């Protein structure tokens, strides 16, 4: 039953997931081409100098891509469920509601995580050829909060979609905007290095919120 549920989620989101991955790859290709041009024009020594001594970050264009992906994936997955309250059908499956909701949320989170991990692998593979470990480490600390923002946006947007009342959706959205700011407090490279392990926990903290809204839906709270 769980695999059938996951298949349903895959059917709903596959084109979006493939599209998001492709758009991400296109974005990275653009960044790599831009960097390749800089390598040829000014040389790697100058680029290293700019990164190390002038605190520049080469992958700044990636900043809002994970956020947009997380937000859109949640919409693609849960808006169809909420149109004409189709989620009722899913909740009537012979599985506990908890298992149903967490399977759906877990699927989305894993799909998103797979896209992001593949992107990070591509970035790191490119980077190890041109940069030493010190620069790569700083790069990872700078990128991680942006990718975590994508996962957090997914968890929050799912919660907002699954919420049965509009009034509460507005409060949920306000909480989402404020919380997401936590991942964009500074553009300074590796600014999050002291708290990165805590930042990684934010999406896991928010993910169960969707189940709370489903329970509110189940007990009949509505506009």
């Amino acid at each position, binding site marked *: 039953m769980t695999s059938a549920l996951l298949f349903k989620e895959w059917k709903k989101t596959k084109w979006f997931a493939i599209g998001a991955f492709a758009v991400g790859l296109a974005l990275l290709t653009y960044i790599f081409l831009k960097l390749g041009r800089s390598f040829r024009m000014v040389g790697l020594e100058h680029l290293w100098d700019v990164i190390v001594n002038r605190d520049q970050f080469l992958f700044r264009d990636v900043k809002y891509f994970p956020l947009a992906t997380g937000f859109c994936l949640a919409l693609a997955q849960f808006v169809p469920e909420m149109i004409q309250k189709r989620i009722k059908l899913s909740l009537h499956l012979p599985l506990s509601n908890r298992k149903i909701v967490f399977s759906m949320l877990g699927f989305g989170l894993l799909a998103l995580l797979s896209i992001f991990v593949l992107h990070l692998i591509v970035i790191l593979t490119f980077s190890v050829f041109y940069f030493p470990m010190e620069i790569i480490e700083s790069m990872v600390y700078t990128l991680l909060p942006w990718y975590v923002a994508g996962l957090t946006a997914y968890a929050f947007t799912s919660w907002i979609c699954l919420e049965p009342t509009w009034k509460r959706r507005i409060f949920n959205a306000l909480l989402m905007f*404020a919380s997401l700011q936590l991942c964009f407090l500074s553009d300074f490279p590796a600014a999050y290095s002291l708290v990165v392990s805590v930042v990684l926990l934010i999406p896991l903290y928010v993910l169960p919120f969707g189940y709370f809204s489903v329970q509110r839906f189940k007990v009949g709270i509505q506009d």
Partner: protein
Amino acid sequence: MKNIKYLIIVLGTMILAWLLPKSYHLVTDKASPNIFTYYSSIDKAFCAIEFDDVKGHLIRKNVKTNKEYSEAEFDSILPMFYSMQLFSDGRMPKSINGKDINPRVVNSKKFFFRVKPADKNKPHIPLYTLFESMSKRVRIEMPGDVFRLTDRIEFINPETNEINEEKSELFNKQFIKKGFQFPAKMAAGNPSTRKAYEEGYFIVDNKDQIFHLKMVNAKPFLKKVPLPDGVVPNYLQTMEPDDRSFYAFVFDTNQELHIITTNAYSLQEIPMPECDVDKDQLLIMANPLYWNLNVVSGKGKEVWAIDADTKEFVDKTSIVGVEQGVNYSKYFLPFSVGFTSGNTRYIKPIFYFGSYLVLLSNLILALAFAMIIRYRKQKIQILPVVWISITGIYGFIASIIFNR
């Protein structure tokens, strides 16, 4: 189910504890006046430029006598600060305090040096560019490699991203020979080609010893700096003054300031106002006669003048920070959470706690919450009431919104 509700309330509370005080400060904060203050070698007193609220314009005055000056008079009172203007007008005295004054002397002894807490407390990539100190070229040129300090010194070629083993070995031998203890705690240098000359790096090793590293004719130059007893370096910043009288500023763990002089690397103490390099800003405005040391802290600005030659204390003045008015927030905001600070480039949670008086308003809010719950005909829940008693207005708003 209930646990998830509490997770939402806790998150809502924390977000409010961050954003509500931030909004309050956005509305109520006042700028502290950073009044320009400089020691006059003519008046032998501090002079300042400040805004006169009554007259509605800037006034230039002697801080001790309160005598006011016109703009042109003020140039003459502070000849070292306005030296360019005085040389251009032909108004610069030939000598001051028995010291010959000419453009060469002024330019070689005049410098500005600023240290902000965020200069020290920021993430940095531990790769360093070591320029050739005796390049025989007018301009400093990029060396074609950078070095890292791990359990040895390694030079890496950026074009190939490979280690230059030969050069690394050459330098490493020198480090071992001089007794350098890896790993290094910090390295201070100025990796810029826009400077008059190159003096390399001052590196603090694992045993708090300072070493001077230079590259001279492509060969390593490493010299240990003799430190007086009790001086443990906390932060170093190098400088290339035109008169080549010193290499670097050393802040030690006792919050004292020293310079590493070019006279056999001897350390000279620089008297300065109380300054915590992690919290306060230091600005040194030096001239051939006096060094002005400005320390800007939460309390205001403290300015000392010291003799440029002997580094002996001469005079001091202070400017008290602006009264922020009554901080009403302490009566209704029990605490606040911040993630950024002017003192650091790192993101990290910082908690500020309010007055104990806020516990009273917390209890009133907890009571109000209990009454609202009764009015909503919900069951009284102990946890949210306790939570509001601790977190006050933040917990109250979060519980009212997300309790159902």
